């Protein structure tokens, strides 16, 4: 019986000791944020916003797909005001599921280029991430590199490294290729990519970079900020890895390098709609754009903003201006196609 008593005491103490999470009932101005971004530097954004506006931010950080499911389950009771994701495909899905509401804002429209936001204002991009080719400086000359399409060429047989096809960054890259060339061509391309792989796709972008440095392959596909992060690392081993790597922006002579967005939308049932719009506008302000750029080495969406010194040294590049709404919508077709082609 002592055991049961112990268990009961544990339960009671537990219920008393935990903070209760009823954020929506506070009297002060609040904003409830569901975010798929997982960067510590984002905390600085929240602090800055709170300092300016006096609005207190409540955050749930998690996987965007599951946050979307949570919003679906919560329905019109959902406390979420703003949903932030790290790629366009998820924003497209949230909009399709009726989780976002259109926002008309002259400020947002003037700050964010057309192709980086939804045509009807259902969502807006706040940072760009360029998906580039990273090569081993000692084994590959940049002159050998040209386009994403070229990575399917047999000359890269056994030399290419890329993560799994189910990753959102690859889904959106392939979605942009589908928009450019149509499915049959892209499926043939994906087959070529699968044949050229140095190993079964595994790990994240950083793992591909480490493998290039270790010599398991010669070229990799990665987002730029992972390279920047290695270069900026306090760990000398990381910097040694990054020193072996070169960054190449593909497709400079045609449509440009694929850029994905990290963006957000105002939830369709947002209890604090005014604060939510204000928050999105804040994210497009100079201060917030600088935190994105310097904190996580992402590219700001607003033209003429400061870059992190590391990505600045790679210089300007031509970016693919196909709308994020288009390659986002191509995500499911891209997944099927890559699996058919044998890209894990």
């Amino acid at each position, binding site marked *: *019986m002592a*055991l*049961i008593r*112990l*268990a*009961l005491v*544990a*339960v009671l*103490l*537990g*219920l008393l*000791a*935990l*903070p*209760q*999470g*009823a*954020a*929506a009932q506070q009297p002060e101005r609040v904003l*409830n944020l569901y975010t798929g971004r*997982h*960067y*510590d530097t984002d905390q600085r954004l929240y602090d800055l916003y709170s300092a300016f506006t006096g609005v207190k931010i*409540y*955050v*749930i*950080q*998690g*996987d965007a*797909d*599951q*946050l979307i*499911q*949570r919003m679906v*389950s*919560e*329905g019109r*009771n*959902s*406390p979420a005001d703003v949903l932030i994701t790290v790629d366009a495909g998820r924003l497209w899905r949230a909009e399709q599921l009726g989780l976002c509401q259109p926002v008309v804002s002259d400020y947002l429209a003037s700050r964010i280029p057309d192709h980086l936001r939804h045509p009807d204002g259902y969502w807006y991009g706040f940072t760009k991430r360029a998906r580039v080719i990273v090569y081993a400086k000692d084994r590959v000359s940049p002159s050998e590199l040209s386009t994403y399409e070229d990575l399917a060429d047999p000359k890269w047989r056994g030399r290419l490294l890329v993560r799994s096809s*189910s990753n*959102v960054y690859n889904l959106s890259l392939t979605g942009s290729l589908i928009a450019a060339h149509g499915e049959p061509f892209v499926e043939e391309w994906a087959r070529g990519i699968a044949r050229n792989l140095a*190993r*079964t796709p*595994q*790990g994240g*972008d950083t*793992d591909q970079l480490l*493998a290039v440095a*270790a010599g*398991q392959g010669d070229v990799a596909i990665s987002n730029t900020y992972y390279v920047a992060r290695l270069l900026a*690392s306090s*760990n000398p081993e990381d910097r040694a890895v990054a020193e072996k790597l070169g960054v190449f922006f593909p497709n400079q002579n045609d449509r440009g390098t694929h850029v994905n967005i990290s963006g957000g939308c105002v939830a369709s049932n947002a209890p604090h709609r005014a604060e939510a719009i204000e928050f999105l506008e804040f994210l497009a302000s100079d201060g917030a754009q600088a935190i994105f750029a310097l904190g996580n080495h992402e590219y700001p969406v607003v033209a003429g903003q400061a870059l992190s010194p590391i990505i600045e040294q790679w210089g300007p590049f031509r970016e693919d201006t196909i709308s994020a709404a288009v390659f986002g919508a191509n*995500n*499911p077709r891209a*997944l*099927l196609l890559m*699996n*058919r082609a044998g890209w*894990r």
Partner: protein
Amino acid sequence: MVLHSLTLPADPLWIELSAIVLPTYLANTVLLVVGVGLSALVLGVTTAWLVTMCHLPGRRVLDWLLVLPLAFPTYLLAYASTDLFEYAGPVQSTLRRWFGAAAPGIEFRSLPGAIAVLTIALYPYVYLFARAGFLRGSATLLQVSRALGCGPWRSFFTVALPLARPAIVAGLALVLMETLAEFGAVQYFAVDTFTTGIYLTWFALGSPAGAMQLAAFLLAGVGGLLALERVARGGGRVADAGGGPLPRYPLGRLATAGALTICLLPVVLGFILPLGVFGRLAVEAGDARLGVDYLPLLRNSVVLGATAAGLIVLAAIALGYAMRIAKSRFVAALVRFSALGYAVPGSVLSVGVLAVIGAFDRGANALGLAAGLVAGGSIGALLYAYGVRFLAIALNAVESGLATVRPEFDAAARTLGIGPLRQMARIHLPLLRASLLTGALLVFVDVLKELPATLIVRPFNFDTLAVRAYQLASDERLSEAATPALTIVAAGLVPVIMTSLALGGRRR
């Protein structure tokens, strides 16, 4: 929710995807489950037998050392081991430096690698249950078998193993279910299983119905396996015949060395090496937020774990009793069905839980009982999710314990006019002490490590250690994730050692 999905029309995209990938996924799943199941069974039973039945130097320390790999979340063990053993890692890099091109290029992120890591991560379930089984196993019967001239091997196979079978199977079932539900670690090893299929269907393809249909299929498979074992076990019951202290087998010098190697190997691979990896990472580039920020994380983790462990064990006692008293197959089937949540991938399950909670809130609103979110985003919702997910652990512990309590005790108590409740308090609970403690410990440690449900069901501004580790790891900042990982291990260690001492003390 999962059952309801079967009635929904199938999504054409999903059908196309299934046709492409499911054959491979199914084959991988079978290989993985069989591989992990067999190796965890052998490793868990062997170590439990050596530690409980043989004279080994350092036996008391080994006794709890062997549980330690449980303290690491599986996906962190996967990180640590790949960090060491993959192509770019120190082991293979060193080999390449020594032997140049002649060095074997081992693809550590593969099915065999996944089986190895999952075995190391999960064998403690078998070990714990088997040890409890051997300890409860009748000393008298073993003495008789010895008097009849049975050697240690024969006693083991003909007496001890059959006696401990319900316990061992209970542990093995947990291993199998956890292997089926495992996603993070398996994904890390670039192995696609049935769970990957569920994820792809749901999240990449955006087809919850298809994912639920796959999950229902998975549940049917698990249910079938468990039922099969019950049929194979037959109606035979094993009951504790009591007896004095167990006579331990003395071992020769060579045998001692061998036994020690067998027992230390999983401890080194599953605890000491990853501790070294994370320790080095944490010192070199730990989480900058370590300090005061960690106190709320630690508090949240520990309090959630203890609360969930208490609640779930109480629920398991109630359910275990319902089965024993009702003696109805229907009740038993119902109870076991409720425990299948353990075999469902965590994030699929937690999304199901969210749907239930959402429906509950809408129902409460419609009835005018409350406005807005009541259960959604509360600690209660989180505890409910843990209950659905981890009931199997506590239930298996209670059931395997109850199986060895002789029905004659119940009959005798009834004759003496003692009601079921007092029977439980006076007779069963003291006999079940080891099983209950084991169950509570496992739930506690599992909640501490639990990620998908915590991540998605939790309230605003509520982080735990596991969430912190995930945030850093998912941002590909492994070295910083080492700090919360080590804190989880430290928090998990205390109850592991305490339980082990409490249990071991009985038969010293």
